C-alpha cells in the first residue's frame, strides 16, 4: 500500500514536471538582446512593453561579446534555447553565416507596419535573404550646456556648425575658462569608430573606405588633430558622454542619443542638442539600427514571430520612444507630452536628418565577422595620428593596408556614401 502511494506520487510528480517543462517550452519565448541593458531600461522594457506581449517573453540581456559567444556556441552544439535575438546591425552581422534563420516571411508585415524599404534592405546585411527586421532606430547628435553658448563664435549657427567653427568655439571656451570643454566617447566601450566612419570621413572626403588615404583624408586628420588640442583629455576614458556632461567635465559632447539621454533627462533646461558639424563634402550622419532576428532552429519560432509583430506595432514603438529614447523604425507620431530630455533628443535627430547638407552614411555592410576589425582600423589610425603624433601620411598608408586586407577578405563592395563598386571596395 505504502509503496503504491509513493509510486503514484512519483508518477504524478513526473507528469506534472513534464507538463510544466513542456508548457514552458511552448509558451515562453526567450529573447536575448544586447539592447536596453542598463537596469532601469531593462526594467522599463519588461514592464511597459513585454508584459503587454501576446505571449510570455523572457527578456535576457547580454554584453555584445557574451551575446556572440552564446549564440555561436548554441549553434555549434546543435541545441538552441534562444528564439529571438535583438542586437545592433553590426552585432547581428557576424551571426549571418551560422546562426540565423532568415525572416523573409516577415518582410510583408514589416512593410505593412510602415518600415521604409531602405531600412528593410539594410536588414539583408548584403545577402540575398532578409536576416533581421529593423526594431529601433537611433543616431548620434551633439549636446551642449547652455552656458557654453556664450562662447559660440558670432558668425556660427549652432544648427549648421562646421568643424572649423566647432574648433573656434572650443578654443574660445579654453581661452576664457581654461577648460578643454569638448568631449568625445573614445573610451574602450565608447562609440568613437562610428564618429570616424559616419561623421568625420564622409564630411571631409565624401567616402569612408575608398577615400581612406586620400589627400582630403590627410587634410582631415590634420584638422581633427588641431581640434583635439581643445578636447578634454579624459575623452580616451569616456564610454558614455552623459556622465562627462553630468559631472561637468565637458560642456560640448558628441555621442549616440541613448548615451546622452541621462544627462538630458536629468536637466532638460540646461542643454541644447544640435547636428554634428559639417566639412567640405557635407554633414555626415549615420543612422543606427537595432534589429530583430530569429535564431536558427529556434525552439519557439511562432513565439518569436508574435513578439516581433508586437514590437513593430505603432503603439509599442511610440512607448519605446517616449520612455527609452530609441526612435520608431517607421513614421510614427510621437506623443506631444514627451519628457523634456527625450524631446531634446527628438529635436536633435530631426535637425540632423533635416539638415540641407546632410550626407547619410550607412552602417558597414557585407563585412561579416570582420566588422570589429574594420572599427579597429579607424581607432588605430586615430591613436597613431592624434594621440601618438605619428606622421599622417605614413600612418594612413600603414592602416590602409590593414583596411585593404579586410575588404579583400570579405569581398565587400562599397556602401554609401562611397560610390558603388562592382567588386571589393577599392581604396584609392
Amino acid at each position, binding site marked *: 500500500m505504502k509503496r503504491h502511494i509513493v509510486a503514484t506520487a512519483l508518477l504524478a510528480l513526473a507528469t506534472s514536471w513534464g507538463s510544466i517543462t513542456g508548457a514552458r517550452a511552448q509558451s515562453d519565448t*526567450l529573447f*536575448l538582446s544586447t539592447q536596453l*541593458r*542598463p*537596469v*532601469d531600461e*531593462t*526594467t522599463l522594457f*519588461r514592464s511597459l512593453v513585454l508584459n503587454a506581449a501576446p505571449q510570455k517573453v*523572457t527578456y*535576457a*540581456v*547580454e*554584453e555584445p*561579446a*557574451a551575446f556572440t*559567444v*552564446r549564440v*555561436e*556556441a*548554441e549553434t*555549434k*552544439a546543435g*541545441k538552441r*534555447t*534562444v528564439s529571438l535575438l535583438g542586437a545592433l546591425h553590426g552585432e547581428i552581422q557576424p551571426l549571418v553565416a551560422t546562426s540565423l534563420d532568415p525572416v523573409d516571411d516577415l518582410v510583408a508585415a514589416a512593410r505593412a507596419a510602415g518600415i521604409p524599404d531602405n531600412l528593410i534592405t539594410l536588414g539583408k546585411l548584403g545577402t540575398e535573404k532578409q536576416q533581421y527586421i529593423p526594431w529601433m532606430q537611433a543616431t548620434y547628435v551633439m549636446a551642449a550646456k547652455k552656458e557654453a553658448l556664450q562662447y559660440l563664435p558670432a558668425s556660427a549657427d549652432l544648427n549648421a556648425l562646421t568643424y572649423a567653427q566647432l574648433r573656434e568655439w572650443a578654443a574660445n571656451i579654453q581661452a576664457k575658462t581654461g577648460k578643454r570643454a569638448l568631449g568625445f566617447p573614445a573610451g574602450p*566601450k565608447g562609440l568613437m569608430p562610428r564618429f570616424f566612419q559616419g561623421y568625420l570621413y564622409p564630411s571631409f572626403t565624401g567616402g569612408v573606405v575608398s577615400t581612406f588615404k586620400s589627400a582630403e583624408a590627410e587634410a582631415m586628420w590634420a584638422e581633427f588633430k588641431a581640434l583635439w588640442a581643445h578636447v578634454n583629455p579624459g575623452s580616451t576614458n569616456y*564610454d*558614455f558622454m*552623459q*556622465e562627462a556632461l*553630468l*559631472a*561637468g567635465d565637458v560642456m560640448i559632447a558628441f555621442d549616440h542619443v541613448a548615451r546622452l539621454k*541621462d544627462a538630458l533627462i*536629468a536637466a532638460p533646461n540646461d542643454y541644447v542638442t544640435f547636428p554634428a558639424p559639417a566639412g567640405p563634402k557635407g554633414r555626415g550622419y549615420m543612422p543606427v539600427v537595432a534589429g530583430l532576428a530569429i535564431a536558427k532552429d529556434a525552439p519557439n519560432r511562432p513565439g518569436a514571430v508574435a513578439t516581433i509583430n508586437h514590437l513593430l506595432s505603432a503603439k509599442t514603438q511610440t512607448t519605446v520612444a517616449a520612455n527609452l529614447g530609441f526612435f520608431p523604425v517607421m513614421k510614427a507620431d510621437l506623443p506631444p507630452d514627451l519628457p523634456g530630455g527625450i524631446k531634446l533628443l527628438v529635436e536633435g535627430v530631426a535637425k540632423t536628418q533635416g539638415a540641407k547638407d546632410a550626407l547619410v552614411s550607412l552602417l558597414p555592410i557585407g563585412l561579416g565577422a570582420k566588422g570589429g576589425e574594420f572599427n579597429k582600423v579607424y581607432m588605430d589610425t586615430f591613436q597613431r595620428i592624434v594621440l601618438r603624433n605619428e606622421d599622417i601620411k605614413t600612418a594612413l598608408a600603414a592602416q590602409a593596408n590593414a583596411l585593404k586586407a579586410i575588404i579583400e577578405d570579405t569581398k565587400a563592395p562599397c556602401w554609401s556614401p562611397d560610390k558603388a563598386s562592382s567588386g571589393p571596395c577599392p581604396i584609392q
Partner: protein
Amino acid sequence: MNARRLLYITGVVALIAWIIVPIYLIALGAFSGRAGVFRWPKSLWPGDATFAAMQVFLQVEGVWKAALNSVIVAGLCMLFSVLLGAPAGYALARFSFRGQTAYRLLIVLTRAFPLAILALPLTVNFIRVGLYDTTLGVALVHTALAFPFAALVSSSLFMGIPRELEEAAWVFGCSRFQAFMKVVLPLALPGLAATAIFAFVISWNEVFAAAVLTVRERTLTAYLLTVLSESPLHFRFAGGFLLIVPSVLFIFAVRKYLFAMWGISNR
C-alpha cells in the same frame, strides 16, 4: 620603546584606514543618488542619503532567485574546491612523485589562461553534456578557478605541519588515514576553512562564466555586474556596493574559522 609602540599603532590604524576609506566612499556613492555622484567638490561626509538606486536593483525581476542561485553556486564551489584541493595539497606537501612539477604547472595553468577566451569551446561542451544553464555547471567552472588556490594554499599548510607528528601517530598504531584525520586535519582545519572561503568569494564575484553559461539560471553577479558597466554611475555604485556587502558579511561571519588559527601555534 614607547615611540616604537606609537609607530606600530599608527601603522595598524593607517592600514585599517587604507582599506576602510575606499569602502566607505563607495557606500557614500551608492547612497548619494544621481545628484550626489556628480557634485563638485564632493562632501566626504554623508549628506542626504537616498535609497532610490538601491531600490531599483532590489526590485529587478528575478533578483532574489538570482541571489539564491549565487548562494547555491558558491556553496557547491566551496565544497568541490576543498574536496579536490585538500587531497591534492596533501600529495604535493608529503610526497615527491614523478610528474609533480608537471602537476603543479597544470594547476597554475588554470589561472594563467584568461577564462573569457575559453568561453566558446567551454559553452559548446557544456551544451553538449547538458550542463548549460544549470547551477551545477557554473559551480564546476568556478571550482576550476578556485582549485589552484585550494590546492596551493592547502599544500603550504600541510608542509608546515611537521611530518614527525604524523609519524608518531603511526608508531602508536594509527593507520595513515587515521593519523591524517586525528593529527593532521585538526591542525589544518582553519587553513582549509580559509581555502573554502576563498572558493566562495571567487565564485560569488565571478561574472563571465556565470553570464555566458546561463540564461535563466543567472547568478546575482551575472545579473547585476553585466549591466553595471553601462548603467548610470549612481546605479553602478549601488550595484557594486550591493555585491560587496554579502561577501564582506560572509567573511565576517566565518572569520573565526579563518583566523582562529593563532592559538594553535602554542603547541
